[in-house]
């Protein structure tokens, strides 16, 4: 098994899910509580990666991150090299790719909160920030964990976007799913199978965790 590729995939997934949580929390909060009528537009944009072929997303990411793209140029100006075919480039493309997996569980969680709890908090003098950190966040932890776990698992298994943006550079952009593809192409089915089985196992455990939690199997205070 290619441990370099495995390690790289885990590193990518960890960085992406951590950054996504920071980005998705305010975005989901806004989408869940705004009364702006045009919010469906932003919701559609956030959900786009769910339906677009990863190659389409990867293609535009490559253009944007490349030396002539806006993000690529800015990056080159700041750091002296382009983003395409680097780990940072992979992270940025994966953020877009996994965004709905972080945002949607959070929105669902925020929207299912009893609004009267938030009302009670305001009437008791709490600012919006205090209500968010003391009431909304602690009561949304299943959504929070779901968002983290799904974006981690989704990033771990991505293929198309990585191939388009990252290429296949060992130790830098060759992730585990690319490794499986390479092994299969080289007719090394035993090695491909080992890695694929590992990914299958991880995905199953992750999903079982999420579904179990949403059934409130481990929820200490919401259980009746």
């Amino acid at each position: 098994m290619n441990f370099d590729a495995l390690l790289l995939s885990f590193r990518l997934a960890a960085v992406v899910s951590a950054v996504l949580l920071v980005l998705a929390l305010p975005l989901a909060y806004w989408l869940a509580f705004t009364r702006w009528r045009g919010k469906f537009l932003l919701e559609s944009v956030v959900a786009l990666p769910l339906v677009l072929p990863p190659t389409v997303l990867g293609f535009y990411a490559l253009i944007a991150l490349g030396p002539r793209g806006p993000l690529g140029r800015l990056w080159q100006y700041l750091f002296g090299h382009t983003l395409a075919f680097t780990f940072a480039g992979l992270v940025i493309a994966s953020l877009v790719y996994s965004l709905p997996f972080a945002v949607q569980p959070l929105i669902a969680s925020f929207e299912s909160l009893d609004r009267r709890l938030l009302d009670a908090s305001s009437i008791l003098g709490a600012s919006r920030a205090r209500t968010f950190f003391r009431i909304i966040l602690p009561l949304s932890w299943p959504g929070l964990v779901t968002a983290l776990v799904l974006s981690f698992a989704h990033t771990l298994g991505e293929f198309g976007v990585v191939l388009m943006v990252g290429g296949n550079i060992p130790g830098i952009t060759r992730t585990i799913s690319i490794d499986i593809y390479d092994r299969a192409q080289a007719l090394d089915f035993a090695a491909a199978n080992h890695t694929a089985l590992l990914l299958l196992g991880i995905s199953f455990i992750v999903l079982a965790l999420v579904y179990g939690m949403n059934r409130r199997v481990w929820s200490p205070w919401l259980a009746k």
Partner: protein
Amino acid sequence: MAGEVTVSMLSVSIRKEFRAAGTPCFLLDVKETFAPGFTVLFGPSGAGKSTLLDCIAGLLRPDDGVIQLNGEPFFDSARDLFLPPQHRRTAYVFQSLALFPHLSVEENVAYGLSALSSAERRELVERILPAFHIEPLRARKPGELSGGEKQRVALARSLVTQPRLLLLDEPLTGLDAALRLAILQDLRAWNAASRIPILYVTHNREEVDAVGERVVALINGRVQESGTPRAVLDAPRSIALAHAAGFENLLHVHVVEHRAADGVMRVALDSTNCELEIPLGTEPPGAAVQVAIRAGDILLATESPRALSARNILPGTLESLEPRGSLVVAQVRAGACFTVHLTPGAIRSLQLVPGLRVWLVLKTHSCHVVLP
């Protein structure tokens, strides 16, 4: 009121329209002043009681009008002023209580005191927990409390903030009578110590009598009547209020004649020749009106009664008997169909069975003319 600032008065004069699919479907239009002490907000569900409380608390913004407490504006559409709920220092206990499920009783109670130092906070919490008999529960989560305990915690959490205004939306529903009265006792003791306006929403007549200094009846978004509980709920002047106040009998009648010298008028039940004597009103002979009578105000006799002060004695037939809790609901056909409340003991001693010939006895002043 000018120049008087010692009494804290809440004055509300607001309009708020709700629309469904573009067309107006509900209008809240309230002008009312609330003095310190209990005011009961009474009305059928959907009358706008919770909406009114939400506007006063700052959870909803009225379309226009003014809300002020003791001269300080909470809301003033002319000046585009809207004080957010955080800065109104009101306390609001919801029907659902809205205790924070992940915080302990103590943390729930201390939640509204975050602006104070931890020493002050501790002192206030230590004083309110025993006052509401919840000290032994301090470490528990709301999920581990009984209904009555939750209600006490919700009240303590609101009152510990030393509010200037208290809004209570059916805070004692679902409790048994003894527990309800015990909690009401605590509330009354608290009210005696801090005279602020308290708006108390309830459907329960017992609670109205226990706290009611004044009742404001809200029907369909408007204040229909206000006054003492007896004046508003025992002699309602509108059909909707009679329904809400639990008048089981609403009879269609028309006025036959006025007897001004006796202070009464005679009315006839529609499509019968049964006549009733009711208090003199302003409706002219021939006018169609409705008369509301409580089922508990009707006497039932198995022989034709004689030598009674009651003026209305109607012969009829007992149609059905239906036990409901501690009383029995009887339906009697006497011209119209009357609902009469009886005790199980009365059923036994009079040996009442469906089909029996009976006489209904109604006092003149138990009959109230109500208008649409």
